[in-house]
């Protein structure tokens, strides 16, 4: 439907489109100018659509329009929010993209609310109907968005606090916060005369406290352990060190849930390391591993002493210094009757340097040759 107001916007759309096409043909199709004109065209089209959709925000009959016009315009906070949005937008371009995005959000939210408010307040002379109309249009969006914002604020503030305080204090704070919520709830139910303002005040205090604490802790940063952990990466698994890794896998059997992925099993029994290939039960002296292939080798320790399996996979030259370094992979120290798994992926053929080796430190002189063809 072409209404008076929308005619203007449709006109702008048409002109801007023509200008864009001309610009693209005559000047440069990839230039920022074409983008600008295109954006103008689509913005005008959007506004045009909106105005014709809301029928220029006008009421339907002349009689109603007059009556509506006589209504005093209600106070509205939306122009202010739109203004703040614009400021944040400009400010955001110069400083922080988050501010910029928040500016856009404020602008869009304020704009939509303003538009609908204005449309509804002049829809008829009946102000109850007008407010119902506004609700009908905006409640579906306002309710869930407000709910999402509340969840977001609580989740972010609360998590900032938790990140700031120590691990053990965290659990306590968590209990206290949730108990407070519960207690307030019960208080309100049990003391029916403590309604209205008191509850509102209580809630406001709680909200301010939470947000305030969130901001303070957010600025003061996360607790030292976390900062350290992020920098040092100290939870990564250690390679074949002399000692047992503090964080070793306590239940390696769970990791070996795929028995069918096992290429060979190396068993230590009575001080001897014996290799068997899956599919063949007789012990073998050498193991052949296809190159560039993830294979798992099971290490089973039947001795009372702890052992680990080490794969010596030749040497590599460190790129910067030219120093040659041994390439090793190993399992964790494995105690009696435990199984551990070594996952190998050997990209280089053993053709050049001779076979690689499996060794079990502590069992000297016993090597199992590994061929990688």
């Amino acid at each position, binding site marked *: 439907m072409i209404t008076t107001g929308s005619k203007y916007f449709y006109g702008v759309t048409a002109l801007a489109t023509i200008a864009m096409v001309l610009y693209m043909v005559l000047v440069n199709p990839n230039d920022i100018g074409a983008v600008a004109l295109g954006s103008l065209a689509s913005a005008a089209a959007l506004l045009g659509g909106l105005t014709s959709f809301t029928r220029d925000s006008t009421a339907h009959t002349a009689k109603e329009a007059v009556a509506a016009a006589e209504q005093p315009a209600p106070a509205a906070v939306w122009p202010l929010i739109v203004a703040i949005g614009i400021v944040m937008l400009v400010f955001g371009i110069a400083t922080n993209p988050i501010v910029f995005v928040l500016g856009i959000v404020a602008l869009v939210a304020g704009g939509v609310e303003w538009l609908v408010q204005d449309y509804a307040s002049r829809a008829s002379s009946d102000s109850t109907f007008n407010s119902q109309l506004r609700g009908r249009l905006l409640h579906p969006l306002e309710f869930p968005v407000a709910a999402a914002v509340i969840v977001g604020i609580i989740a972010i503030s609360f998590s900032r606090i938790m990140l700031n305080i120590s691990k053990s204090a965290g659990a306590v704070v968590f209990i206290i916060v949730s108990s407070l919520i519960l207690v307030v709830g019960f208080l309100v139910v049990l003391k029916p005369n403590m309604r209205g303002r008191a509850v509102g005040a209580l809630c406001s205090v709680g909200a301010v406290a939470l947000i305030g604490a969130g901001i303070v802790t957010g600025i003061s940063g996360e607790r030292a352990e976390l900062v350290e952990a992020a920098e040092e990466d100290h939870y990564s698994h250690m390679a074949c060190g002399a000692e047992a890794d503090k964080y070793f896998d306590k239940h390696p059997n769970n990791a070996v849930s795929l028995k*069918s992925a096992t290429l060979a099993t190396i068993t230590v029994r009575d001080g001897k390391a014996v290799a068997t290939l*899956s599919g*063949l039960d007789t012990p*073998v002296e050498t193991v*052949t591993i*296809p190159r560039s292939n*993830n294979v798992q080798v099971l290490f089973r320790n039947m001795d009372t002493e702890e052992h680990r399996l080490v794969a010596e996979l030749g040497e590599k030259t460190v790129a910067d210094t030219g120093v040659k370094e041994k390439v090793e992979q190993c399992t964790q120290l494995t105690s009696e009757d435990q199984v551990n798994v070594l996952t190998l992926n050997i990209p*280089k053929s053993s053709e050049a340097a001779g076979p690689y080796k499996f060794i079990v430190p502590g069992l000297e002189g016993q090597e199992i040759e590994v061929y990688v063809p």
Partner: protein
Amino acid sequence: MSRHAMSARNAHRVRALAITKLVGASIFLAGCAKDAPQDVFQPKGENAADINNLQYMVFGIAGVVGVIMTVLFVVTMTKFRDKGQPIPEQSHGKPALEITLTIIPALILSVVGVFTFRGVFDLAETKDTELVINVTGQQWWWEYDYPVQGDWGIDKPIITSGQLVMPAGTKVLIRETSRDVIHSYWIPALNGKRDAVPGRIHTLRLHADNPGIYAGQCTEFCGLSHGNMRMEAVALSKEDFATWVTNQQAAYKEPEKDSLAEQGEAVFLNQCVRCHQVNGLKKADGTAAIAAPDENVYAGAAPNLSKFMSRNTFAGATWDLLKKDCRGNVWDAKSEEFGAKYLEGVSADCLNEVDLRRWLRNAPAMKPMYADPTKLEPTDGKYRGMPYLALSESDIDKLVAYLLTLK
């Protein structure tokens, strides 16, 4: 379990199935076609024969049921078409008949089930394996490596591709895996298919009664050139297999001085050795030339070309290294002559130069592969398959001459 008991049981089963087999054979003539290399009704080894017995049984039963049902349909439709008879009694069925008709198929199927159960476990048997071969799938070819097994004279690992060479009359266990996606290993004449799954090792028993060459095809969809991923299993008598093993382990033969082949070796060192290993090949400075396919190929390997001309195929067994009649000589050879013919390998006269040159000239044009250097972003610049190398015609001449020496 002793071999004697096994064969006794097999014999028993064969007797038990004799009748159904006859019926099945007559219904499914498909099994008797000539010259269909992947025909599933032509078992050439004991595993495939086990399966075939089950197939005959179940096809036979299905055939008989099919005939009965057809008769029933035809009779029903002719006898009860509307000839003006009154609208019949609105009977809602006869429970006794219903139950009977439920129990009969259940009984038939439980008989089939018993045989199936036994078949499944027989085919999964690995205990009495005599030779182990690792089979690795990669887009779009198969690699075979033979772990060190002194009994068979394999003192150091053998690696080959395209054709799986195995001794006839031997229980061979293949251990399948894959470097990239799932493939499936299938030589219909020797056994059913088994998927090669990356990160897993699956076993499959192959057994060939007689020397011969058996065709197969990758049967799990594995990407662009799935249709071009074939394999052949070559069964040799035990003596011939020993010869083959010795030959595969023989030292590298350098090409003659000042020959075209020697120039070809230089081209190979310059271009091909980046991915393709030839065991024993040395660089100009005397050090071993070691291929680094892991730096160029996404899956991390390329076919090892040592003893290349002892094989009959290339490029995922999709093209033949032998000219058509030379190939026919090998494929149609009687089983007692087969070994000798196969072990001849590829001679200069028999070489299918047309396809080999076409391949060297522009491999991705011949077989679809992810080898466009501009589209390697997802693989960090690594190829899947062999890229276009822009070799000159004279380089190709030299390479062909050199490749002919790899026997």
